[in-house]
C-alpha cells in the first residue's frame, strides 16, 4: 500500500469514525430528550383529560373521539370507569386497558403495537373512579430519533467523496519532496556518489542525510579499495624485479656458486610474490554475513592447522587457559586474522620461541591476545608496524608486509581495537585485540 493510500484511508477512517461516534451520541441524546419531552406531553395531556373529563365528559355524545391530526393516529387515550367500563376512548385506542398499573408511566404491547402509556386516576361526577390512560406509539419516538440521525448522517454520503478527493490532492502535495528525492536517486549513475543537494522537509531530511552519509562512506570505501589495489599492484613489482634481476644475474654468472645462489634467491622471490598474491586474494574473497563466532574455537582450529609448520621452524604454539569468547563477526575474516597473527609470530619470532594465544574477558570486554617471546621490535618500529607493506628492518623472513595491515582492517571492521606492545620483560611482541561487548 502506498504512503498516499495509507494516509488517505487512515484520515478518511478517522473522520468517518468521529462522525459516526458523534451521530451515535446525538442519537442517544436526542432519544433521551425526546422521551423526556414526549413523556411530559403525555402527562400534560392526561391532566387536561382529567380536567375536561370531570367537567365536560357528559357533554360528549360520541364515545369515539375524531382523528384531528396526522400524528393523532399515534396518540390514543382511554377513560375507564371503575376499572371495567370503557367510558371514552380515542378512535385508534384498543378495547383492552392500555396499562395494568394504577398510575405513572408504563410500556405495553397490544396487538403487535408498542405503546408508551401514562395512567392517572380521577373522580367522576357520580363519585365513580375513573382511570385515564394516555398512550403514544413508541414507533413514533423511534421515527423521530431516526429522522434526526438521518439528517445528521446524510451529508456524510456526499462530503466523504469530496473530502477523499481533497485529501488525495493534499497528501500528494505534501509528499512531493519524497517524489523529488525518489527521482533524484533514480536518475543517479552508479558512479555518482556525490551528496544529494535537496531542500526537503524536516521529516525527509534525516533520510537525505543518511543517504548522503552512505554515499560518502561508499565513496571512501571505493577510494580505499582503489588505493589498495594500486598499492598492491605496485608492491608486486618489487618481488618481480627481484626475480628478474636474480635470473639475469644467474645468466651472467661465471661461477656455479653464484648461479646457484641467484637461482635460489629467484625462487624465494617467487614464494614472496605468491604469498602476496594469496593475501590479496583472501581479501577479495570476503563473505559479508556476520554471525556469532566462538573465537576460542577458531583459534584452536588455526593453531592445530599451523602447529606442524611452526614446529618445523622451531616455534611452539600454545592455547593458554581462558574463557571462551563469542563475538559478532565474519568467520573467514576472523580466520584470516588469526592466521595472520600466528603466521607473523611464527615467521618473525625465530627459532626456540613460544607463541601463546589467550582468549578471555578484560573488564567484561572480550579480548584475544597473541604473545611471543621472540626477537620482538624496537619501540620506534612498533608504531609503524601496521602500516601497509611495512616490514621491519633487518627482517630475514620473507613476507609481504601486508599481514598486520590486514589484521588492523579486520579488527576495525569488527569494531575492535588493536594494541601492539613489547612482550613481558621487553621480550617479544604482545598483540592484544579488544572486541566490543556483545551484551
Amino acid at each position: 500500500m502506498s504512503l498516499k493510500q495509507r494516509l488517505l484511508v487512515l484520515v478518511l477512517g478517522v473522520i468517518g469514525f468521529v462522525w459516526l461516534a458523534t451521530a451515535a451520541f446525538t442519537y442517544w441524546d436526542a432519544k433521551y430528550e425526546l422521551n423526556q419531552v414526549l413523556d411530559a406531553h403525555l402527562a400534560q395531556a392526561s391532566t387536561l383529560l382529567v380536567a375536561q373529563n370531570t367537567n365536560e365528559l357528559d357533554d360528549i355524545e360520541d364515545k369515539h373521539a375524531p382523528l384531528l391530526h396526522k400524528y393523532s393516529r399515534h396518540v390514543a387515550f382511554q377513560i375507564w370507569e371503575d376499572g371495567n367500563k370503557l367510558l371514552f376512548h380515542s378512535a385508534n385506542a384498543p378495547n383492552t386497558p392500555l396499562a395494568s398499573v394504577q398510575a405513572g408511566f408504563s410500556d405495553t404491547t397490544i396487538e403487535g403495537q408498542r405503546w408508551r402509556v401514562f395512567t392517572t386516576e380521577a373522580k367522576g361526577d357520580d363519585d365513580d373512579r375513573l382511570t385515564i390512560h394516555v398512550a403514544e406509539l413508541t414507533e413514533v419516538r423511534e421515527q423521530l430519533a431516526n429522522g434526526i440521525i438521518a439528517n445528521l448522517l446524510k451529508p456524510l454520503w456526499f462530503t466523504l467523496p469530496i473530502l477523499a478527493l481533497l485529501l488525495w490532492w493534499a497528501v500528494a502535495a505534501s509528499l512531493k519532496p519524497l517524489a523529488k528525492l525518489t527521482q533524484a536517486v533514480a536518475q543517479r549513475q552508479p558512479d555518482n556518489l556525490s551528496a544529494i543537494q535537496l531542500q526537503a522537509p524536516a521529516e525527509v531530511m534525516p533520510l537525505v542525510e543518511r543517504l548522503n552519509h552512505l554515499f560518502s562512506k561508499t565513496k571512501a570505501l571505493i577510494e580505499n579499495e582503489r588505493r589498495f589495489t594500486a598499492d598492491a599492484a605496485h608492491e608486486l613489482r618489487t618481488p618481480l624485479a627481484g626475480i628478474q634481476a636474480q635470473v639475469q644475474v644467474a645468466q651472467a654468472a661465471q661461477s656455479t656458486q653464484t648461479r646457484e645462489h641467484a637461482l635460489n634467491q629467484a625462487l624465494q622471490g617467487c614464494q614472496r610474490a605468491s604469498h602476496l598474491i594469496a593475501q590479496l586474494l583472501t581479501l577479495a574473497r570476503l563473505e559479508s554475513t556476520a554471525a556469532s563466532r566462538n573465537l576460542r574455537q577458531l583459534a584452536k582450529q588455526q593453531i592445530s592447522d599451523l602447529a606442524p609448520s611452526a614446529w618445523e621452524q622451531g616455534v611452539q604454539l600454545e592455547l593458554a587457559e581462558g574463557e571462551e569468547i563469542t563475538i559478532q563477526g565474519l568467520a573467514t575474516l576472523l580466520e584470516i586474522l588469526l592466521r595472520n597473527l600466528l603466521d607473523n609470530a611464527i615467521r618473525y619470532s625465530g627459532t626456540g620461541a613460544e607463541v601463546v594465544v589467550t582468549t578471555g574477558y578484560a573488564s567484561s570486554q572480550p579480548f584475544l591476545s597473541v604473545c611471543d617471546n621472540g626477537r620482538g621490535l624496537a619501540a620506534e618500529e612498533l608504531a609503524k608496524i601496521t602500516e601497509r607493506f611495512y616490514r621491519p628492518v633487518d627482517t630475514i623472513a620473507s613476507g609481504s608486509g601486508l599481514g598486520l595491515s590486514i589484521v588492523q582492517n579486520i579488527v576495525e571492521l569488527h569494531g575492535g581495537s588493536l594494541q601492539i606492545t613489547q612482550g613481558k620483560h621487553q621480550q617479544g611482541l604482545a598483540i592484544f585485540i579488544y572486541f566490543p561487548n556483545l551484551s
Partner: protein
Amino acid sequence: MRILVVEDDAVLGDALQTGLTQAGYAVDWVRDGAQAQHALSSEPYEATVLDLGLPRCSGLEVLKQLRQRRQQLPVLILTARDTVQDRIQGLDAGADDYLIKPFDMAELAARLRALLRRAHGYTQPLLQVADIELDPAARQVSYQGQIIDLSGREFTVLHTLMLAAGRVLSRTQLEESLYAWGQEVESNTVEVHVHHLRRKLYPELIQTVRGVGYLLPRAKAP
C-alpha cells in the same frame, strides 16, 4: 667504481649487489633510509641506486638531504611507482635517472654507465686519453687500435684514473673504488695494478706523485 645500493627487498637487493659486482662495480648494499644516509655521508661513492619505499626514512628524504649536503653523485631511483607525478617528484628532488620495477639488469648497468660518464663531464660513451680508448660498456681497452687484455681490477683502476684524467687521485681513493664493505683490502694492491697497467700499456701512462697519489695526464708526454 664504488656504488651504494639502497633496497629493502632481500631478493632484489641481493640481485643488485651480485649483478652490479658482475658489471665491475664495488657494491655496498644497505636496507633502510637511515643506513643509507649514514653511508652516503661517510663513504665516497661514485653513484647510488636508490629505492623509494624504504623503512625508517624514505628514499626521497635520503635524496633531498643528499642534495642539501651539496653531494653531486649521480642518483638513480628504482621504484614501483610509475605515475608521471611520482617521476616528476623524484626527478625534482634531485634524481638523475628513474627506473621502474621490474627492470632489466643490463639496462640498469647501461644507465649507470651513462650517469657516471656525464658526471665526469664526458658525453661520448668511449673514454679517450692519448692513444688509449676505454669502452665502459664492453669493459674493453685498446691502445693504438690494439685490444689490451686487462683483469677486472686493472680495468677499474684505469677507468677511475681516466675519468679523473688530469687530477691526482690518492691511493686510498683508488682503493675505495675497488673494494666494497667487508672485502679485505690487500696491501699494495693499487701499486700492483698500476704496475701491471704501465707494463701492459706504456710506462709514462700513470705518473706517481710521491706521498700523494697517482696522476693520469690528459695528453701523452711529448
